[in-house]
């Protein structure tokens, strides 16, 4: 019996495409965010609020993933930014090849920010690198404060936790301090913003975070280029 060492990533093909995408995003100065949450936490609502708040000439585009329907793209198109739906036909996550394929007829040089809304699922999307600069996890207060402990991988890999639906806090037994503590147990120092996409409460902080990320990304790219 011989043992042949393999020593490579299982998803090496996905990672190879993701690395290519990351290279293209860097080359064209695009900040790419991958938004992940369970179904119904408010990823699309957060994107609606975000697109609404951005200046009309901002160089922003959205890829939105779902197993079926074009509903999300239709919701997001009214803001007049480029939006494309990725319908996976059953697959529970987006992978790098789907991103590559759906970006094919967009000019990255016309973009500064690419927002990817993943399929609603807290598990599988966390394994697939899409070439993003960072992952953002959305959790709503109707889901229970122990979610970071139950689904640690995605909280571990995301830079920011957006805690949504805080307008419902008076009506649901959700301990916001415990949720933050659980998230930071899994991911020490994790940044957290609390928002309500319904009332607009807290969205200013989310937009500040996004603005700061965009500035930092631009600064990093200029530094790398010089």
């Amino acid at each position, binding site marked *: 019996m011989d043992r*042949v060492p393999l020593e490579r990533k299982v998803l090496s093909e996905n990672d190879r495409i993701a690395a290519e995408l990351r290279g293209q995003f860097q080359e064209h100065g695009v900040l790419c965010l991958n938004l992940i949450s369970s179904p119904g936490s408010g990823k699309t609502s957060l994107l609606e609020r975000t697109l609404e708040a951005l200046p009309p000439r901002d160089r922003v585009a959205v890829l939105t993933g779902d197993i079926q329907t074009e509903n999300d793209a239709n919701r997001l198109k009214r803001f007049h930014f480029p939006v494309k739906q990725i319908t996976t*036909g059953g697959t529970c996550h987006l992978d790098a090849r789907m991103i590559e394929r759906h970006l094919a007829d967009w000019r990255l040089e016309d973009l500064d920010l690419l927002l990817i809304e993943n399929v609603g699922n807290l598990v599988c999307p966390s394994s697939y690198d899409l070439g993003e600069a960072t992952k953002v996890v959305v959790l709503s207060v109707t889901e229970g404060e122990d979610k970071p402990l139950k689904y640690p991988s995605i909280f571990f890999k995301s830079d920011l936790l957006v805690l949504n639906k805080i307008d419902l806090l008076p009506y649901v037994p959700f301990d916001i301090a415990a949720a933050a503590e659980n998230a930071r147990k899994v991911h020490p120092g994790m940044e957290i913003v609390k928002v309500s996409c319904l009332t607009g409460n807290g969205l200013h902080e989310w937009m500040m975070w996004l603005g700061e990320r965009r500035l930092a990304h631009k600064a990093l790219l200029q530094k790398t280029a010089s």
Partner: protein
Amino acid sequence: MFPVETGLAPSVGKAANAGETRQAASLREFMHEMGIANSVLEAVRTEMALHPRTYPCKVGVRIGEMAAIDQDALRFCFEAIIQETDLASLELGIEVCPRRHRCQVCGREFVVRNYDSRCPQCASLETTCISGDELELAYLEVEEDGSSAVGAKSTQ
């Protein structure tokens, strides 16, 4: 973790592998661990082409506890895609890797248990993750072809 069988043709996906059963092919793109199992099998086939006079007995993978992979689901998927193929006796070895951190203050490396990432030596909270996110192919055990590849089934 999402065994959805829609009965619809997926808009994305790869061509079915030769020898793969229809059931496995229909599951392949619909389940997270199925994609992982399929990638493992593809890697085995790539290696087989590099070592033509050998027969693979066992493939070893390393999975970090933060990798969001369910071991039982992965085994189930792996067995589903190899059954009734020339690799039906291929064993899957899974090594689970714990989450490890290194202390930025004193340099101690330690296993994080119960999400407590505080350094056990100096109590610093300034620790960074060094492993626990693995999803890697580790090794392939092969026998010389024609020897004791026990249980090897042929599709011929």
